């Protein structure tokens, strides 16, 4: 059985835009436009897309926050908004930009309150708490009020809080946003471990391609409310993320350089952008550039998720051009 199922799910928002001084225009914006997908138990799925693509809206429909405009949703066998309370017992939710913990209480007291809200049996609560304290290293700030925690500490607290009741599925909306490299890594490791040892199914939205690379084998890309890619990460990189970019600052402005294995895609004064295949060595390329013109500085840019998405979108835009506009009055 699939743990998460969506069948042709849509979500429209009604927005009222001012039109002149008093009149208002009623505009229907389609945030999610016919998504069909399913997720197997025990998988980690990364859900990405540019801002406003409909990621959060999808997550909010899956967690029972938003009622879909049409289509069918099943999560752990429940219809999210109709069976909200049953569903809430079986899922954990963490929003990277929102605080779910009690702001003025020590972290441990938030855990205690959640234990009663979710009716977690004492012995299971103790067992989970002990495990999370160790894995997420919560002990140094367990008795500190949440308002005094650093972002990294708070996120670790939030992740633990989302899992105290042993959910089957964990939904994470931008879990690593704003975290430093070390904190990101700690959260990722914890999620991988929870997936392996508890069989936890994870669905996360992120802007950080590294989250997806470290965590998930499967990636879903959404743009303009439609699913435009559903497959594994390796295949995605093969297809769309093959090129890296070498940025060179020359001592003096020059004509676009001609180097083997790379092509100049942009020139701005003394600065040039050279795209090259993932397989090509950046060092060799740099040497080739230096042989032609004196170098002041350089940097290598990995393709970020926005680039990859833009490239995929570019490939599908032509196909979509004939279909109807997503927002209509």
């Amino acid at each position, binding site marked *: 059985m699939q743990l998460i199922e969506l069948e042709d799910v849509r979500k429209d928002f009604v927005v009222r835009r001012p039109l002149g001084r008093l009149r208002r225009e009623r505009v229907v914006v389609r945030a999610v436009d016919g998504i069909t997908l399913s997720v197997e138990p025990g998988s980690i799925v990364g859900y990405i897309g540019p801002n406003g693509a409909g*990621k959060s809206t999808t997550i909010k429909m899956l*967690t029972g*926050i*938003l009622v879909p405009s049409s289509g069918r949703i099943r999560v752990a066998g429940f219809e999210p908004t109709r069976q909200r309370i049953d569903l809430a*017992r079986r899922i954990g939710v963490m929003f990277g930009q*929102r605080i779910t913990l009690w702001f003025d209480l020590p972290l441990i*007291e938030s855990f205690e309150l959640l234990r009663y*809200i*979710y009716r977690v049996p004492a012995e299971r609560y103790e067992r989970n708490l002990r495990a999370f304290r160790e894995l997420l290293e919560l002990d140094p700030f367990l008795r500190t009020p949440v308002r005094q925690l650093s972002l990294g500490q708070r996120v670790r607290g939030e992740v633990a809080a989302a899992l105290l009741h042993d959910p089957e599925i964990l939904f994470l909306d931008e879990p690593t946003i704003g975290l430093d490299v070390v904190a990101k890594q700690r959260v990722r490791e914890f999620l991988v471990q929870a997936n392996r040892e508890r069989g936890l199914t994870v669905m996360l939205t992120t802007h950080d391609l590294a989250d997806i690379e470290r965590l998930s084998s499967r990636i879903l890309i959404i743009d303009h409310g439609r699913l435009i890619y559903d497959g594994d990460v390796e295949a995605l990189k093969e297809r769309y993320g093959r090129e890296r970019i070498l940025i060179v600052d020359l001592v003096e402005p020059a004509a676009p350089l001609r180097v083997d294995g790379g092509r100049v895609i942009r020139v701005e004064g003394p600065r040039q952008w050279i795209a090259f295949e993932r397989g090509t060595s950046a060092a060799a390329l740099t040497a080739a550039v230096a042989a032609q013109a004196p170098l002041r500085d350089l940097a290598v840019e990995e393709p970020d998720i926005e680039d990859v998405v833009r490239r995929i979108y570019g490939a599908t835009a032509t196909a979509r051009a004939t279909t109807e506009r997503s927002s209509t009055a």
Partner: protein
Amino acid sequence: MADAVDAAALYARLSIARIREQLQYRTSFALQTLGMFAISFLDFAAILVLFANVPQLGGWSVSEVALLYALSSLAFSLTDLVIGHLDLLPQMVRAGTFDLILVRPRGTLFQLVTQDFQLRRVGKIAQSIAILAYALATVRVDWTLERAALLVVIVPAGALIFGSIWVAAICIVFWTIDANEAANAVTYGGSFFAQYPINIYDRWLRRFLAYVVPTAFVAYFPALFILGKPDPLGLPAWLEVSTPLVALMAAAVTALIWRAAVRHYQSAGG
């Protein structure tokens, strides 16, 4: 039943947590409670000033109006203690933090109610009780079992009526965010009107208070019954004892409105 006990225990637990947070700042807490107690007497002083100029108000003596005031004010301050922080809802809906309430396995309204607990609001309750004591000591009542029973029941029933009005009114924020001033007009306005005998008002306002926003049932009708006063408006006598029933009906209607409102929630952000 077990669910109700469990919910009550959780309510107590969450409220105690909030009180402990507030008691971290003891002096501020003490001053606020005292201030609330003192300021709420100004309300009542307005009534006394009125009676310094007229011996009666629509056929009601000062003690009788004090009884009306105390019943209404006690019900209102109980409502305020339990759900006063519903004022936070517009902000939660605007910022999208209402999301968090929807992903937890408890009733939405229950979670909202347990979000906060402002102990300083007991100051207002204490003032209402003081005025109720004054009214009962000075007013002439032929006490019967029925009258005493009604007196005991109407305070929680009145609080339920006020609570239902508040919740129903605040639901408007799920449709238009900036309308909570309109909601305030209904809630605070309704409680103000309930402090005076409704027969002094215009016919349309009376009907509004009796049938639309039923605050006339909080104090006016039950007070007629307790005082054994003939209704100056000549309305049917059964209205005088129907407060508990009206409270349950108001709560039922509000529950339906609330459900529809939550389904209309649009969250915020991407």
